[in-house]
């Protein structure tokens, strides 16, 4: 049993521990002088989501409504939460409102992966198949006209992701029945297991950190072999708070950070993905998703419903089955008279629920150590990709999200993160080496939200330190400078990141 009420003491414990370590090791040196000086501290930094920022008391959660949400909209927020949280069930049932799961799927609900709005989990061992972690698939080669709107060449049999579950009774009862008791009607695509290869990183000061990277094993492939040339990318479900604010950042403010040819010579470029917008039927700048392959929040939510839960909707009307998966295609679905399992007015509720999930107020923001870490963050140029702040644009529809000064610490641009982090799976313009800068807000309380310590796209990093050490490519210079800091300064920098 989890009694998470014990958890909030962790931050204080960390602070004590860090202090003890610092005193023991190095005493209190000032941070090294830097050519990139941090701007003056602003009082708005304590409120990463501006007026939407919610209190982390009594429970730290990324599932809270924006603090300034109009009370009249609260019931819609919770109605949307119902659709994100309560399990979808196998069709047919007596109404279409909650049926249509799968036939193949990854999760029954949105929040079973984005637990409490936070980051998903990835197994530390190969004892259980991956759940809450997505395996994206594609085939190599130039994008043909046929797949111009997909941005990838999907696997001809398995499509663009592994759905590791199915509505088949044999799958549902796999933990209680002897193997062979039941045959699949619709087979899950595969049970995917992960193994971790450990390696040791040694700092110039000889301090060592254990790192790990994943390798996958596909068992029970339901539809034949994957083929050797299949491109595979492991994705842990990201946290989903603050999305409505990110959505309202003016595109021109993001574009202003683009330096595609690295004209300023800092080694950091940053570029916009250009992706298909199903609503406008045009190519549009990508903003959401680990490779910025979705232009709008609505498409992000609708795409996840269709692909991950198997709930069709007007933006993604198809079932999650490829032409080669005939049993999947011919299974009962939960479509309404318009041909969708999730009608638009309910999809809107879920999108608005996601839109209104609040970033949390910071608990540490102005102490000496946080401010020292802040100096280092800027000194090392971390802010070049983890762009600290934006002001959201105007929205008549969502006035409470408008004009907010927010502190997400992401430029929402694609960056080459080096070969070791690469998934080698292009997605629209994003190369196999490129990832969108993930926002850092809330990263320090991520595990207090739901226990997940997984960082980076595939969850390989278990601490902020490990995540930093995996940085390469455009982030190489900053990473190298980090490794040459004193241990105390490294801790101070990480203390700042944890405080965000």
């Amino acid at each position, binding site marked *: 049993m989890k009694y998470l009420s014990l958890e909030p003491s962790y931050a*204080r414990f960390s602070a004590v521990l860090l202090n003890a370590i610092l005193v023991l090791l190095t005493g209190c040196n000032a941070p090294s002088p830097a050519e990139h000086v941090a701007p003056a501290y602003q009082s708005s930094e304590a409120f990463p989501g501006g007026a939407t920022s919610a209190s982390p008391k009594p429970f730290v959660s990324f599932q809270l409504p924006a603090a300034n949400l109009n009370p009249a909209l609260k*019931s819609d927020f919770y109605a949307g939460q119902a659709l994100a949280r309560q399990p979808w069930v*196998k069709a047919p049932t*007596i109404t279409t409102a909650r049926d249509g799961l799968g036939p193949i799927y990854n999760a029954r609900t949105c929040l079973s992966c984005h637990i409490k709005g936070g980051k998903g989990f990835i197994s530390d061992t190969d004892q259980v198949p991956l759940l809450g972690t997505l395996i994206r698939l594609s085939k190599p080669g130039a994008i043909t006209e046929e797949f111009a709107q997909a941005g990838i060449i999907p696997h001809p049999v398995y499509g663009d992701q592994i759905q590791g579950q199915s509505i088949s009774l044999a799958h549902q009862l796999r933990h209680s029945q002897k193997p062979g008791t039941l045959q699949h009607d619709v087979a899950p695509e595969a049970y995917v297991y992960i193994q971790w290869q450990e390696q040791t990183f040694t700092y110039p000061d000889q301090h060592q950190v254990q790192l790990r990277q994943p390798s996958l094993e596909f068992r029970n492939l339901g539809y034949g072999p994957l083929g050797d040339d299949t491109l595979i990318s492991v994705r842990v479900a990201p946290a989903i708070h603050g999305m409505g604010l990110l959505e309202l950042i003016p595109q021109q403010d993001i574009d202003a950070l683009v330096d595609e040819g690295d004209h300023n010579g800092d080694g950091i470029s940053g570029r916009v993905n250009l992706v298909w917008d199903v609503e406008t039927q045009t190519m549009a700048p990508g903003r959401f998703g680990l490779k910025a392959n979705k232009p709008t929040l609505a498409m992000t939510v609708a795409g996840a419903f269709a692909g991950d839960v198997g709930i069709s909707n007007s933006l993604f009307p198809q079932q999650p089955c490829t032409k080669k998966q005939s*049993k999947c295609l011919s299974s009962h679905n939960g479509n309404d008279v318009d041909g969708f399992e999730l009608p638009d007015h309910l999809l809107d509720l879920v999108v608005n629920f996601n839109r209104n999930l609040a970033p949390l*107020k910071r608990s540490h923001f102005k102490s000496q150590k946080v401010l020292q870490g802040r100096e280092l963050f800027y000194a090392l140029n971390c802010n070049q990709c983890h762009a600290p702040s934006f002001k959201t644009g105007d929205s008549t529809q969502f006035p409470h999200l408008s004009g907010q000064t927010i502190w997400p610490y992401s430029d929402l641009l694609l960056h080459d993160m080096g070969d070791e982090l690469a998934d080698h799976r292009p997605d629209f313009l994003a190369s196999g080496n490129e990832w969108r800068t993930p926002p850092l807000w809330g990263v320090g309380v991520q595990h207090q939200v739901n226990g997940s310590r997984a960082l980076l796209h595939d969850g390989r990093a278990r601490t902020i330190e490990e995540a930093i050490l995996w940085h390469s490519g455009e982030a190489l210079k900053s990473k190298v400078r980090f490794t040459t800091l004193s241990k105390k300064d490294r801790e101070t920098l990480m203390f700042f990141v944890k405080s965000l």
Partner: protein
Amino acid sequence: MNLLKLATCITAASLLAACGSDSDGPSAQQKLLNTNADIAYATYTDSVETAKLLKEALATFKTSPTAENLTAAKTAWLVSREPYGQSEVYRFRESPIEAVEGDVNAWPLGEALIDYVKVNDTDFTADQVGVTANSAGINADGVVDGSIATQNIIGETDVVINDALLANTASADDEHDVIAGYHAIEFLLWGQDLNTTTQLTTNGTDRNLAVNATSQGGQRPLEDFTTNDNADRRHQFLEVAVDKLIVDLEQVQAGWKDGVSGNYRAQFTTITNDADFNQKLTEILTGMGTLSEGELAGERMQIAFASNSQEDEHSCFSDNTHRDIWLDAEGVSNSFYGSYAGYDSTQDGIDDVTSNAVNGYGIDDYLREVGLDSLAASAKDAFDLTETNYTEIDTLARAGSPFDVQIMAANRTAQSPVSKTIISLEAQARAIQDIATELNLGDVVEDDASECETSTPDVEC
């Protein structure tokens, strides 16, 4: 907060701190937490006891599967909901129920996974092919044909129905398969709530109307438990489900038992300073506010009201949703007043089983003790209004318009008691939030001096 109130608050807080350890018995803070824990233990104890009565009724029905005994089993199920509903205010605050709630009370139910689902092809659009029988089977290869039922636990006789089936499936992996708990038992006893009595034109657009139009619950025939080939398997499933329900509820009950070193209650009721108390009180208020606004008004009522969705009805097979609403709301006011009146065993709306009733120290008492009388009064007004409105839902339901009829399009007006209850629950949630605000409970204490622990001021930072 105005200055006068602030002054009152500070004065009261100082007084309390000063009096915290006097010899006149437990402090106000301690009394509030103890009562809150006492009510939890009482409601879970009654939940366990009524679940055991349900088990007895199911056993009798198995031995003698008559219409009378089926009715008696249904009644026992309805009674078992009475104390459990009042316990739901203990969710949303990381208390013992969170570990098993998914197995106890999860919904929507995966009904198609448990037993046959009878789908009348004229009631449903083309997506719902005419599955009419419980003869399950699969095609070895090729497509899944609409002429055969999908597989389900009752129909697949190779599936062993034992405690491992539920224990290993219900909580397995992501979320829950939702084949366990109260609603699984409900589905097996009542069956799907389909329109079988009226002759509406059901060309798809009228589908919701057709489904909702009946004013009774599900219509599972008695033959499902007598002459049907799988009758024994249904009895077996009920037996396994109620056993697991009892085990799960007992686990929660044990977490709240007084005098057990190290259990949840011991942790919850142990406070050493005002900050400890504030944390616990915030947890209580979070549970009350979340149930009022998020779960009940939003996830259960607004979504059902907005989408006219029968499946969003909490107890959709038995048409008992009006009681779910009443009982959840009653649980919230129990926490406020520090009292639990017991439960209703005769379905007349009056709590007649009072053996575990609690009459203790409520949040209202505490507010008055710290000089916030007007806050206590305005919260009481909010609770009273909610009670008026949910009572109206209950009255209508008892008069033949169950919740699924009350949410039908024609009844969706501002005057609907469902609409009024949603609004009053939201107002009640704001009143609960006001309590937290006035007591400064949600504030983030800033560390503007340094991250140094004040307990170790000598550590250099």
